[in-house]
C-alpha cells in the first residue's frame, strides 16, 4: 500500500483510540475468556475420553448413558442464560455508536470509488485523511456518490456502511493522539483495497490550528445559505412568502407531523429525503407541491444545505 507505516498500531495488540474501543475490548476479551474456557473444556473432555475409552483399554464401560435429562436440560438452558447476558451487554455498547453526545461535532464523509472525502463544518475539506481533536465527541454523517462503501477505523473499533441515496451515521470520541489506519471495508470495485488512508487524532489546540490553516472555503453553513437562495428554496420557505410552504427556521431536531399521520424527527436523513424525495414525507397541512432536487444537487451541496438548515435557528 502506498501509505506510510502508521504509528500507534502495535502489531499484536491493536491500539484502542476511542472511548468505545475500551468498552469493545472489555467485551471482546471477556467473551474470548468464556468461549476459550468452553472450547478447552470440550477439547480436554474429547481427548480424555478418546484416550481412556480407546478400544482395548481396560476400563469400566458398564451402562453407557444415552439419555440424561437433567444434563441435557442443563446444557440447553445454561448457555441460553449466558448468551442472553452477552446479547444485552453487546447491545448496550452498540447503542452508544448511535447515541451522539449533545455537543458532538458533525463531520460529513462522502465515499467515492476509491477515496474518502471529508468536510468539516467550517468548510475545510480533506481527502483520504481525517483530522480529529482528542476528547471531542464526533458524529460522522456518511454518504456515497456511487456504490456502498464502509468507513472502518480499527483503532476506534468503528465501522459503518455508506449507502447510496441516504445518510448513515456513527458516533464516538477519539481519545488517543496518533495516526491510525482508515480502510474501506465493504467491497466496492477494482481499487477497494487501496481505498483508505489515515485518521489523525490531534490535541484540541493543534486541531483548531489545523482547521483554520489554509482553509479558503466558506463554512458549510454559509455555502448552504448561498445554495438555499440560488436554488430558489428561499422563494417558498422564507417567512412571508406567498407560497404555502413550511417555515424552516429551527426545523432541525423538531418533531414533524406528516400528512399521513406519522410523525418523525427532522434529522439529516429526513432533511435529505425532503429535498430529494419531497413527496414521500409531506408535512401535515401542506400540499405536495415541492419539486424534487434529485440530480441537481451533489453530495457536497446537500451536506452544505443541511448544515445551513441546522444552524438556521
Amino acid at each position: 500500500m502506498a501509505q506510510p507505516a502508521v504509528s500507534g498500531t502495535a502489531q499484536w495488540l491493536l491500539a484502542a483510540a476511542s472511548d468505545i474501543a475500551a468498552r469493545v475490548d472489555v467485551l471482546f476479551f471477556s467473551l474470548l475468556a468464556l468461549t476459550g474456557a468452553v472450547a478447552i473444556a470440550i477439547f480436554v473432555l474429547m481427548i480424555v475420553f478418546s484416550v481412556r475409552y480407546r478400544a482395548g483399554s481396560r476400563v469400566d464401560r458398564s451402562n453407557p448413558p444415552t439419555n440424561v435429562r437433567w444434563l441435557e436440560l442443563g446444557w440447553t438452558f445454561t448457555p441460553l442464560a449466558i448468551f442472553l447476558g452477552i446479547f444485552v451487554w453487546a447491545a448496550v455498547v452498540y447503542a452508544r455508536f448511535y447515541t451522539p453526545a449533545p455537543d458532538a461535532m458533525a463531520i460529513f464523509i462522502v465515499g467515492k470509488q476509491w477515496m474518502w472525502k471529508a468536510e468539516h463544518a467550517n468548510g475545510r475539506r480533506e481527502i483520504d485523511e481525517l483530522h480529529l481533536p482528542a476528547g471531542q465527541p464526533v458524529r460522522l454523517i456518511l454518504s456515497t456518490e456511487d456504490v456502498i462503501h464502509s468507513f472502518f477505523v480499527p483503532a476506534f473499533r468503528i465501522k459503518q456502511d455508506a449507502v447510496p441515496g441516504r445518510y448513515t451515521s456513527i458516533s464516538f470520541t477519539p481519545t488517543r493522539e496518533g495516526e491510525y489506519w482508515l480502510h474501506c471495508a465493504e467491497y466496492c470495485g477494482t481499487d477497494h483495497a487501496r481505498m483508505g488512508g489515515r485518521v489523525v487524532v490531534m490535541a484540541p489546540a493543534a486541531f483548531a490550528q489545523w482547521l483554520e490553516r489554509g482553509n479558503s472555503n466558506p463554512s458549510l453553513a454559509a455555502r448552504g445559505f448561498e445554495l438555499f437562495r440560488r436554488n430558489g428554496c428561499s422563494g417558498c420557505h422564507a417567512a412571508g412568502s406567498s407560497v404555502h410552504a413550511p417555515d424552516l427556521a429551527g426545523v432541525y431536531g423538531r418533531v414533524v407531523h406528516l400528512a399521513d399521520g406519522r410523525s418523525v424527527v427532522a434529522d439529516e436523513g429526513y432533511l435529505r429525503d425532503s429535498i430529494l424525495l419531497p413527496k414521500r414525507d409531506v408535512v401535515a397541512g401542506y400540499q405536495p407541491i415541492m419539486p424534487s432536487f434529485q440530480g441537481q444537487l451533489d453530495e457536497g451541496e446537500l451536506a452544505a444545505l443541511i448544515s445551513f438548515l441546522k444552524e438556521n435557528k
Partner: protein
Amino acid sequence: MTYVLTWLALMALLALTFGSSYLPMGAWNSVANMAISCAKALLIAVFFMHLRQAGALLRLAACIGLLWLALLFGLSWTDFGTRTSSPAPWSSR
C-alpha cells in the same frame, strides 16, 4: 355443484372488490382488496384444490410457504418499519 357455488362466490367477490375500489376509503381500500383476495384464494384452495378433504400433511404443505413468506416480511419490517418513522430518541434531538 360445490364447484359451481364456489365459482359464483368468486364472481361475487370479484364484483365486490371491483366496486369497493370506487369508494373513497383511503388506506382501507387496499385492506379490503387484500382481504377479498385472501378470501378468494381460500375458496380456491379449500374447494377447487380439495384441501377440505386433504390430510394434515397436505394442509401443512399448503401453509408453510405462506408462513415463510410472512417471516420474510415480518422480520424485514423490524428494519424498514423502524428506520425513519420512529428514530431512536437519541439519534437526533
